[in-house]
């Protein structure tokens, strides 16, 4: 009998288990959607990051054009269910922690840029940024700096 590792992993309650691509894609998708409105500017910012991300473009899988389609398929289970956003974020962060602190910082800054793109900080967006900051174990000085700079960038 073949083991369904995905199911076993989910049932174990362990965190993580996403590939780097999947984790980044999930966080950026949630950043654009968590305020309940897919604002055109946030969507444009998210699509831009996804289309040009060195990580998402750099894998072998993207060369045959299937990576983004595969990620889109995998996220279908939760992407329209706001109650899933928190556990997915926590899992994505746990997965990214296995990569490097630099990756975590970079993805956090990209998420902040998306959240601030419409110039309105919804309370769910603030909660997401707090969650990312905590789960990605970011240095507070860096995180504060990122928020201040991206806020300034998106004002005009």
């Amino acid at each position, binding site marked *: 009998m073949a083991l369904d590792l995905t199911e076993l992993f989910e049932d174990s309650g362990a965190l993580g288990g996403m590939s780097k691509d999947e984790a980044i894609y999930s966080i950026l998708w949630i950043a654009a959607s968590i305020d309940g409105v897919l604002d055109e500017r946030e969507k444009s910012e998210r699509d831009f990051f996804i289309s040009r991300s060195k990580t998402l473009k750099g894998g072998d899988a993207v060369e045959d054009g299937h990576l983004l389609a595969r990620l889109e398929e995998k996220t279908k289970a939760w992407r329209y269910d706001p109650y899933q956003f928190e556990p997915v974020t926590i899992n994505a962060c746990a997965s990214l922690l296995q990569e490097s602190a630099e990756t975590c910082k970079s993805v956090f800054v990209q998420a902040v840029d998306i959240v601030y793109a419409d110039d309105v900080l919804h309370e769910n967006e603030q909660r997401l940024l707090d969650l990312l900051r905590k789960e990605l174990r970011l240095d507070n000085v860096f995180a504060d700096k990122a928020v201040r*700079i991206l806020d300034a960038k998106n004002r005009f």
Partner: protein
Amino acid sequence: MAINFAALFEDADGAMTKEEAVYAILKISVMINGHEDDRERALLESLIKGSKTLRGSKDGAQSAIQSIEQRLAGADSTETLNQLAKDACASLEHIGLEICKSIFTQSVDIMLADGSLHPNEKALIQILAEQMKIPEDFVRMVLSVMASKNQY
């Protein structure tokens, strides 16, 4: 006799509208390294689409964009681009420090979008920071945050 105001102001710094100045700085940020990288161009388009300043103008800033594109078509050297950037900075500086900080950050974001910093880009960052009188600690923070953002 009609006075040609454009010709009279040609030798003075500034005299651009806010929309012209914003577009000029962002477009020069794409052009300054001698070639238009796809990622930098894509970011410029995304920033134009989201820009409150450009979206807020009457015609979606089309006339400002056309006017700057005409001026850039005749810009055949780095020095000419830098001079045009200085004009744009002088125009924005009159409006206020907050817009200068915002456009400076957008410009650095574009220049780092291809993951590397060309010497011409470094020189342009210095020109923008000096001309728009951006505080040094803010410049340092922008470089650190934008480098991190564009790393992955």
